[in-house]
């Protein structure tokens, strides 16, 4: 009897000790889009689990539904996500609607300095109002829209000769947007190895953000501006400038003369499929996919190379990428902050890059060996110097949907002129800013 009592007392004691431990170890949920880098982050986070004792679970949503799903979650004050790697354009809404925890005090306390991260990424992923030292996220994943091409085709003598004959130039990575189009048109409908190939896969998706992300890749190099003076919401003459009109017309010509048939509603996945199946000579897509593309056994390795979105009047790339934020509705904010502290360490950032994530930490980017660490590393650095992002206003979703509609109407549905499309876009945006009380 005595031993029984002792035993049960011991068991109770152990159970109590265990439950006390469990109270400290939290289960954190991190939310992000379902794509290659997310898998790398799962790998990386195992180290955090081992160090902190917290358990990580992940909620990854496919890109076309990512914004819809996550913004609904935030708007309803949901507790699903403790940590959120939210898209760069959400930062305004995240800050103003109180979805994200402001991180300034935490950064000061833990000695995390934003000077340790690439300035473009801090500006784009962390600050609201833009450029002020008010931080709502830590730069987690640098990204931009870039290009890749079939190096094996570009190096074939018969193709090179045919290109020289048609254009009088040597076939090489394009130096301007117009050269890009010329190369794409050269490959359009061309027979290579007995199959019909096409120029390039570009973004034309209507439902979420696809065509806007694609067309800005042309608009920015032509010199497109959202406002005449930053912060003034004065768009007449900026959004519909002659350069913007030219760029929009360029994108339409590209769509009509240099993309595979039926690519009227394609985004990341469709573009990757087109390239990997050998349909196209070139494709635009986010740098995030480049490690996966390079590793592809058929179209990767020796057969692929990468280039930055070519300049036209100036250099310019469309910004992708995200910062990591702590959700204000989470009950486990302390553990979530612990994760950010762990993630910000230079050693972890270095592993992050090795695993296929794009670190924005200076210790990684400025490392002498960085440029040679991957065939696209140098391009990535170059692209991040000239990135531009869409509006990051709290009303960004409205602004984006208007642009999706106006651009798709013109480029894919062939309605009206480029000038009319941009004029209508200004009307839409003016209405949004009026409703916001900013005009």
């Amino acid at each position, binding site marked *: 009897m005595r031993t029984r009592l002792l035993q049960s007392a011991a068991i109770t004691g152990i159970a109590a000790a265990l439950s006390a431990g469990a109270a400290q170890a939290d289960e954190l949920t991190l939310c992000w889009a379902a794509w290659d880098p997310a898998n790398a982050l799962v790998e990386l986070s195992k180290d955090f689990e081992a160090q902190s004792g917290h358990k990580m679970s992940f909620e990854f949503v496919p890109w076309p539904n990512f914004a*819809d799903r996550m*913004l*609904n979650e935030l*708007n309803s004050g949901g507790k699903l996500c403790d940590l959120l790697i939210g898209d760069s354009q959400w930062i305004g*809404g995240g800050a103003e*609607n*109180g979805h994200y925890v402001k991180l300034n005090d935490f950064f000061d306390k833990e000695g995390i300095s934003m000077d340790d991260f690439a300035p473009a990424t801090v500006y784009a992923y962390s600050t609201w109002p833009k450029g002020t030292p008010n931080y709502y996220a830590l730069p987690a994943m640098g990204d931009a829209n870039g290009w890749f091409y079939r190096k094996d085709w570009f190096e074939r003598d018969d193709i090179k000769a045919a290109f020289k004959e048609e254009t009088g130039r040597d076939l090489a990575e394009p130096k301007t947007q117009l050269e890009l189009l010329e190369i794409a048109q050269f490959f359009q409908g061309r027979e290579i190895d007995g199959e019909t190939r096409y120029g390039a896969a570009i973004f034309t*998706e*209507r*439902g979420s953000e696809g065509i806007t992300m694609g067309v800005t890749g042309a608009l920015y190099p032509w010199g497109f501006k959202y406002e005449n003076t930053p912060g003034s919401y004065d768009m007449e003459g900026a959004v519909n400038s002659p350069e913007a009109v030219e760029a929009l017309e360029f994108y339409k010509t590209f769509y009509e003369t240099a993309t*595979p*048939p*039926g*690519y*009227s*509603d394609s985004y990341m996945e469709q573009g990757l499929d087109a390239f990997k199946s050998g349909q196209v000579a070139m494709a635009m897509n986010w740098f995030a996919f480049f490690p996966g593309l390079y590793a592809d056994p058929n179209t990767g390795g020796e057969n692929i190379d990468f280039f930055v979105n070519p300049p036209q009047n100036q250099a310019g790339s469309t910004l992708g990428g995200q910062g990591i934020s702590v959700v204000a509705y989470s009950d486990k904010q302390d553990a979530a902050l612990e994760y950010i502290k762990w993630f910000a360490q230079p050693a972890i950032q270095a592993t992050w890059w090795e695993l296929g994530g794009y670190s924005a930490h200076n210790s990684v980017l400025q490392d002498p060996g960085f440029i040679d660490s991957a065939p696209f590393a140098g391009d990535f650095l170059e692209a991040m110097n000239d990135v531009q992002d869409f509006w990051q206003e*709290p009303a960004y*979703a*409205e602004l984006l*949907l208007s642009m999706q*509609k106006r651009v*798709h*109407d*013109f480029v*894919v*549905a*062939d*309605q009206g002129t480029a000038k009319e499309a941009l004029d209508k876009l200004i009307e839409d945006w003016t209405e949004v800013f009026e*409703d916001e009380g900013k005009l």
Partner: protein
Amino acid sequence: MASPIKRAKGLSDRAIAWLFVGPSIFLLLAVNIFPLIWTINLSFTNFKANRNRDVEYIGLRNYERILTDSDTWLTMQATAHFLFWTIFFQVLIGFALAYLINKKFKGNDLWTTIIVLPMMLSPAVVGNFWTFLYQPQIGLFNYMITFFTGGDPSSFSMIGEVALAPWAIVIVDTWMWTPFVMLICLAGLRSIPDSIYEAAECDRASKWRQFWTITIPMVLPFLMLAVLFRGIENFKMFDLVVQLTGGGPGSTTEVTSINLKREAFEKWRTGYASAYAVILFVTVFGLASIYVKALNKVKDR
């Protein structure tokens, strides 16, 4: 034990009736009438469900914006095109199929089952796999068309071209829902007693005459019911079209419910979307009321 029974006995008939009906009325008010009134209330405001800011009453501004916006009329036109042609084809083909199946040949039950299959699939699945069938380079649809007409299968894109996309969604909806119309027509055809046809034979009425004076009038109430169901369903069409075209190219296939969803749950213009919903509600309610009146008249005949 005795007292509650006594008390229940003491209740008047009217009170007992209220006791039974009360919960249903309460539920109806809570989940149906209250949201409706609240929506009407919101439609006069600038409320946005994702923003914590003061809500202002802005009068009829939302209604003015919607009704003067040329884009609203474009989505209405897209919806009308979709509604008219899907119902037209579904009634035509559905009735023809029902008429043939009703001939009671060997294996007609098997054929009924096969024909009814598409209706049992989820609209999202149907939308998704028809994007593959419509794919210009590998899709079966383009291959079949060019097999008969000649030419290059990848020379046209059902989903990507402005002229073809509205028909692409009509074809898929017709493929999916014709069986439904067929089933209802079949029920109508089977409800006609043979004796009427026999009497007509005695009067030497031709088959053609029998069809127009017996079959059609007696099936008409069923047919009209099918049209009502399909009409209401297709006015609300969302999932199939979203999966198939996403409203594109441009806004060619952006039917009203897609437009409304974007305003309400992507742009979060709750006030504006409420006004939009009220306008749609009035439209559908008005049209349906007129239609039901006509339906009742046909039934009375």
